[in-house]
């Protein structure tokens, strides 16, 4: 009668090679990914915030200068004063719209939330890394248990991070609201065209 061969435990040399590969290409690569992502998201978030602040400052300055020039010039405005007021008025109208665009961009990319998730994952990876097997452990059984704890811990951090990432990605509420409003406005002109077959999410 044929029997299923009993699995043999891998030898120390096999475990050493597999540990080296896992450590270098799973653990260290994952750490590199989190460090790079946190640095990039932090920088992107700061840059967009700076742009928003600058646009807000420019809008306020434009409005204040319109008031000042109008006050100083009185009713008798020169052509130059009229042109300056016109340009500043355009700025005061355009800049808030661009500022709102950058606010929504930050909501779309969720940089700050992702920084928190990746930072926490990085800390948890360090805990898993601390369980890496010491090469001088004499018994293969203990070495194997340590290798297993190290690798399972790493995979568990990666799994948790993916789950949290999935919960963080949402369509910004302001885009959903904008879509509903625009579809209402377009309704009288596109009557008779229902949603496309299988359509279940307009914002996608």
């Amino acid at each position, binding site marked *: 009668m044929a029997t299923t061969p009993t*699995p043999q435990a891998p030898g120390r040399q096999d475990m050493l*090679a597999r540990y080296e*590969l896992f450590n270098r290409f*799973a653990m260290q690569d994952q750490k590199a990914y989190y460090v790079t992502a946190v640095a990039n998201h932090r920088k992107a978030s700061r840059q967009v915030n700076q742009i928003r602040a600058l646009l807000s400052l420019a809008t306020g300055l434009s409005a204040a200068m319109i008031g000042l020039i109008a006050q100083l010039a009185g009713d008798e405005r020169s052509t130059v004063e009229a042109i300056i007021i016109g340009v500043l008025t355009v700025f005061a109208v355009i800049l808030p719209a661009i500022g709102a665009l950058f606010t929504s961009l930050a909501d779309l990319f969720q940089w700050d939330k992702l920084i928190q998730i990746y930072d926490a994952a990085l800390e948890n990876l360090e805990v898993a890394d601390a369980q890496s097997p010491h090469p001088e452990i004499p018994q293969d059984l203990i070495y194997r248990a340590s290798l297993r704890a190290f690798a399972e811990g790493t995979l568990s951090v990666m799994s948790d991070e*993916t789950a949290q990432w999935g919960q963080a990605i949402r369509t910004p509420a302001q885009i959903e609201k904008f879509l509903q409003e*625009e579809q209402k406005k377009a309704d009288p002109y596109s009557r008779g065209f229902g949603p496309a077959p299988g359509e279940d999410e307009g914002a996608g």
Partner: protein
Amino acid sequence: MRLKLPNLSPSGAQPVSQEKKGFRQGWPVWLRQMPRLSFPPLNENFQLIDPAALEEVLSQADTAAAERIRRDMRHMDGELLRLFRRLDYEAKAQQNRYRVYQITYLLLAALATLIGSIMALATDNADLLAVLAFGETLVALLTTYLATISGREPPLPLWMQNRRRAEHMRREYFRYLCNLEPYDTVQGYEREMLLSKRAADINRGFFPGVKPDEGA
């Protein structure tokens, strides 16, 4: 004050990615993350472990152990990596598609706000008001057009679904490589067949031990 960013990774190395090296180098970081209008084709040769780096590690390992690992890698290339490459690529493509739509909506929203602001200032100019009202309608129609197009195969759930499967596949790759549970209880052809089965399950959204498409 501008803070200097720390070294990108503990070893200074860049993480493994299908992204082309040096993509949008020199651009502000937030602009580098913007979607692209022309998406590159799938890289059929992408490996989670660079073959040269793998050989570097294996050259220092025991000959028999290195040969076993090479056999594992060959098997994974045919049974798991080809599925991973497609899932990872599809996730990236849907993420790009989602962001193209979302950013177009943001631009249209900014345009709608702008038109509304000018309309509020130009109440005494009937001709200009008519033109602006037409512009406002055009924005609404364009938005509805885009929403209708993106409603077919919405990119957000497809991005999420493919990313979850790809990440699970990546973890399975390292689980097999490190001979973790359940691969530590079987050997030879049985171990290889187990990987094939689990990879096919992950590919259809059934994650071993987790409800379909609910887990990470």
